[in-house]
Structure formats: structure tokens, C-alpha cells
């Protein structure tokens, strides 16, 4: 039985969540950067930078929130596979539109 008195304080809980808190902060920074680049001060290079930032945020969620590195190799493979297939879908369809 997990007796209630063994439960830590909020600080105690957060001490066990250092990685998650760091990821949280990183995601908020990423969001801020995207908003600045896209809404507050857009420039011609913004789109590319935003896509890179998006990729970084996606990686952050996968690696730290969803703990992919702690999963067995197979799950890691699955998470990569999904994005590879999205790339096929989008890439080959756009190939059509760019060669029309």
C-alpha cells in the first residue's frame, strides 16, 4: 500500500521530473520563437526556420515526454517509420505538383 504520508511535496515530485520540466521549458521557448518568427516579425527566411523549430519540438516531445530512447528498439523503429512514411506521402505527391 502506498501510504499517503510517503508522498512527497510538490518540490519532491518535480525533483523526479527534471527532464520533463526541461522539455516543457524548451517547448515553450520553441513556441515563443515560432510566434515571433511567424507573427510578430516575419521575414523571408522565417518559414524554413519555423519548420526546423517544429522538427526540434517534435523531437523534444518524442525523446523526452514520450521517452522514446527508453523504449525497446522496435518502438524506436516505429516512431521513425511513421515520419518516414509521411515524408513519402508528402514528397511524392508534391513531386507531381512540381512537375506539372
Amino acid at each position, binding site marked *: 500500500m502506498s501510504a499517503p504520508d510517503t508522498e512527497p511535496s510538490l518540490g519532491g515530485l518535480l525533483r523526479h521530473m527534471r527532464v520533463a520540466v526541461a522539455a516543457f521549458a524548451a517547448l515553450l521557448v520553441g513556441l515563443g520563437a515560432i510566434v515571433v518568427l511567424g507573427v510578430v516579425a516575419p521575414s523571408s527566411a522565417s518559414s524554413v526556420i519555423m519548420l526546423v523549430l517544429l522538427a526540434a519540438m517534435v523531437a523534444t516531445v518524442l525523446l523526452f515526454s514520450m521517452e522514446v530512447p527508453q523504449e525497446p528498439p522496435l518502438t524506436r523503429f516505429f516512431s521513425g517509420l511513421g515520419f518516414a512514411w509521411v515524408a*513519402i*506521402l508528402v514528397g*511524392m505527391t508534391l513531386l*507531381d505538383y*512540381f512537375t*506539372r
Partner: protein
Amino acid sequence: MSTSERAFRDPAPAPATIGRPPDYLHESHTLRSWFLTTDHKRIALLYLAAITAFFVVGAIAAGLIRLSLVVPNGEIFTNDTYNKIFTVHGVVMVWFFLIPSIPATFGNFLIPLMIGARDLAFPRLNLLSWYIFVGGALFTLADLIIGGVDTGWTFYAPFSTTFSNTYVIPALIGVIIVGFSSILTGLNFVVTIHAMRAPGMTWFRMPIFVWTHYATSLIFLLATPVITIALILLLMERAFGIGVFDPALGGDPVLFEHLFWFYSHPAVYIMVLPGMGVISEIVPAFAQKRIFGYRFIAYATIGLASITFVVWGHHMFVNGIGTGAAVVFSVLSFAVAVPSAVKVYNWTATIYKGRIRLQTPMLYAMGYIGLFVLGGLTGLFLATLAIDEHVHGTYFVVAHFHYIMVGGTMLAFLGGLHFWWPKFTGRLYPEAWGRISAFLIFIGFNVTFFPQFLLGYLGMPRRYHDYPPEFQLLNILSSAGATILAAGYLFPMVYLIWSLWFGERASANPWGARGLEWTTPSPPPAHNFARQPIVDFEPYAYPDPPADDDGAAHVG
């Protein structure tokens, strides 16, 4: 050799008939025990019943199509009725028969048995996917028959979204629902094959049947969601005017075709890969020989499942896609032929110098190999840009895919049904009838569909029921073939059901085949194995044929 023989017997010290625990069929008899079962074997039989019913509906529609095409001027049905009939045929056969056919029945039944597991990883999910399948499919079927839909199985926009005056919306809803059943089945298989293998059952000890189902399940997972979203987009556009394909607003209907074929080309491998798995079990068993090039077949399976995702554009060559893209899709489509051919060579090499027994399953398997080759080769014609300009949208395409889907998948399905029938039911089917119907189907099939290659090459378009009178002879030939084919299908339906009560009782391994599923009694007990099997043998461990043999002596 000795250890492997021992391991084979180990899991099932085949008990005498008397006093053995009740098998999965006789464990309980209530209706409830069937409709709420979580036993993968019973669910497989539920699927078998459901898809057989859908097959009958699809076949009746096919009969009506062939009936109409006997005369050139389309007198028998009105245009609208004809359109509705071929839509029933296409939707039911593709979505409700071929796609679930082998995986949901044989795959469900056999995967846990073949890898030495007690059940699939998620038994309740398995039952749920049956209900989703039956619910969605019946819903669509009711709509197709009571209301009628005239879009064909492909639901191309903008006809389906804007111009069709038929009941497209319920059909879309039903097909979307059925997609979830595919996804859940695929998910269940992937997890089961990864997580539930018996000790010692390494990847390269799995039967090819399991490999092909693994590849199929990956396609289920990676492709089905895309058709789901494509159909949702159609549905929202037709029902609420919320959509992205409307050309009147500047939308591009070809975008729908991209999404559609991103699923539907891989879906043809959903239909054909499990059949390849069935053939890979039957051929070694009836040649009593180790399968040739096991690893190559396994790799070719995964190869097919991957390449199949990058060729979808070959369905759109004349629909306005970019030339650059068309060339890329054409070249990649040729590449699909390589792993397909690897498999054909491997089966042929397995048969070569084997101790061949030409029983019903083997007859189907040999038919499969021949027809698959024809279907695949004509696929290469179609993948060639210049030829496709000429034959796209003609009966040549119809013949091509029927050679693979009927000549391939359907023969594999029947072959597998006969091969594992003793395991499913504990009874043997009548061999003579089996052979007769296998021959009827092979002949009927070719008479039906070969003329369609000629018709297509001469320029007869698909999906019309009036045609120039000079095509009548070939059309009559095709319709006549369809009656032979129909007889060939009727026989098994009768004698297989007959055998449930009157068939000879089957032993655990009536074919002398290898594989864990043959080590349990026929039919298997509810928990599959009396003891947890431990696998220390290679797959297809058939005894080596005598070295100095010319092989021919054993044929027959």
C-alpha cells in the same frame, strides 16, 4: 534432427480421442459463447462466415454484370442500374471480401498457433474489430442495395462529392468504419508477432505465412489511416460542403486520387501478400521439401510491403499528373516486379524435384503461381507509360487485376481453406470433389478473364454496358466462363459444409506438414497448446529428398 523431431512433438503429446479435453469448437455451444468469444479461433470462424456471405453478394452482382454484357446494346439493365450493380460488386469484393479475407480468417486462426502463443495480444480488440467490420459492412451493403450508389469502388471526386445523385454518404460512412476494423486487426497482429512468440521462435524460424501477415499488418497500419482521411474529406464535402477537392473553387480532384491510391495500391498487396503466405505453406507441404530460399522470401515480403508504397501514381498516368512524377512512378512500379518474381522462382524451385502430391490445396497453389505470373506481367505492361496511355480505363486493366485478385488471392484463399480445413474443423473434405472444383475454377477463371485482355487491347472501355457488336463474341465467351467459375465456387460451399457432419475425422497432421499448428490436435483445444511449446527447429524442416533421385519418379 532428433532434437527438432522431439521439439515438434513436445507441445502436444497427442492425446487419444476419448478422454481428451474438449476442443475449441466443443468447449461450449451457446450462441453467446460464439458471439462474445475472445478466442482467436472462433473469431476467425466468425470472420469466415461473414466474408463468405459478402462474397456471395459480390458474386451475384458479378453474375448480373456478365449477364448484362451478353448483349452489346445494354438492353438488359438501364445505365443507372448497371452502374449500381458494378459498384456493389466492386465495393463488396474489394472492401468487404478481399481485404479481410485471408488475414482476418486464416491469419486470426493461425498466427497464434504458428508462433506458439495462447491467443492474440488483444483478444477483446479482436472481437471488437469483427463487430466493427460486420456493422460497417452491413450498413454499406444495405445502402448499396436499397438506395444504390454509382461511383464504383473508387469514389473519385468530384463525381462522388458533387455530381452523383445516389446515396454516396452512407456508403462512405460504412467504408470508413470498416477501415478501423482493418487497423485494429493489423495492430493486433503486429503486436502479437512481436511480443508473443514462443521461446525459441526467432524471426527466421517463423513460417513465411507469419512474415507475410506481418508485412500486411504494417500496410494496414501505414496505409489505412490515409484512406480514412481521404474518405472523411469526401464525406464532409458531400454532406456539408466543407472540403478541398471542389474544382469550382480551384480545388484539385487529383489530390483525392493521390490520397486514395496511397492506400489503394498498397491495399492490393494487402490482398495479395497473405495469399503468398498461404502458397508458401502449401507448396513445401505437398512437395515434402524445405522451402527454397527461405530468407529471400522473407526479405522479398518486406521488400514488397515497402516498395508498394512508392508506386501509387501508376493509377494516375493519364489523369493529369506531372510528367516527371509519372516517369518516377513508372520506374518504381517496375521495381515491384523484382520481389514478386523472387517469390515465384522460390516456389517453383521448391516444387522442383520434390515428392509432389497433387491434392486439392496443391492444385490451387499451382494455379495461383501461373495466374499470378500472368497478372504480374500484365501489371508491367500497365506500368509502362506508353502502353498505359492506350489501355488505361479498358478491360485490359480489369483482366490484369482479376488475374491477381481472383486468380491469385481467391485461389490462395480456397487452397488455404482446403489445406487448413482439417485443422479448423477436425474433418477432411472429400478429395475428389475438391479436385473437380479446383479444375472448374481454373478453367472457368481463364475463360472468363482471358478474353478481357483481348477486349481491352481492342479498346473496350470498362464500366460501360453498351459496346460495339464486334466485341460480342468475346463478351459471350467471358460470360460463359463466369458460369463455369460460379459452379466451381458452389461445389466447395456445399461439400465443405457437408463435411462438417459427414467428413472423415482428421488427424492432427493429415498432410504430414511441418509447423507448430500441426502439432496440436485437430481441432485445437481452446488454449492451443497443452504445454508452452519450445522451438528449437528451423521452419519447413522437411526431410531432405534422396540425393540420387531424378525427382520425376515421384510425381503423381
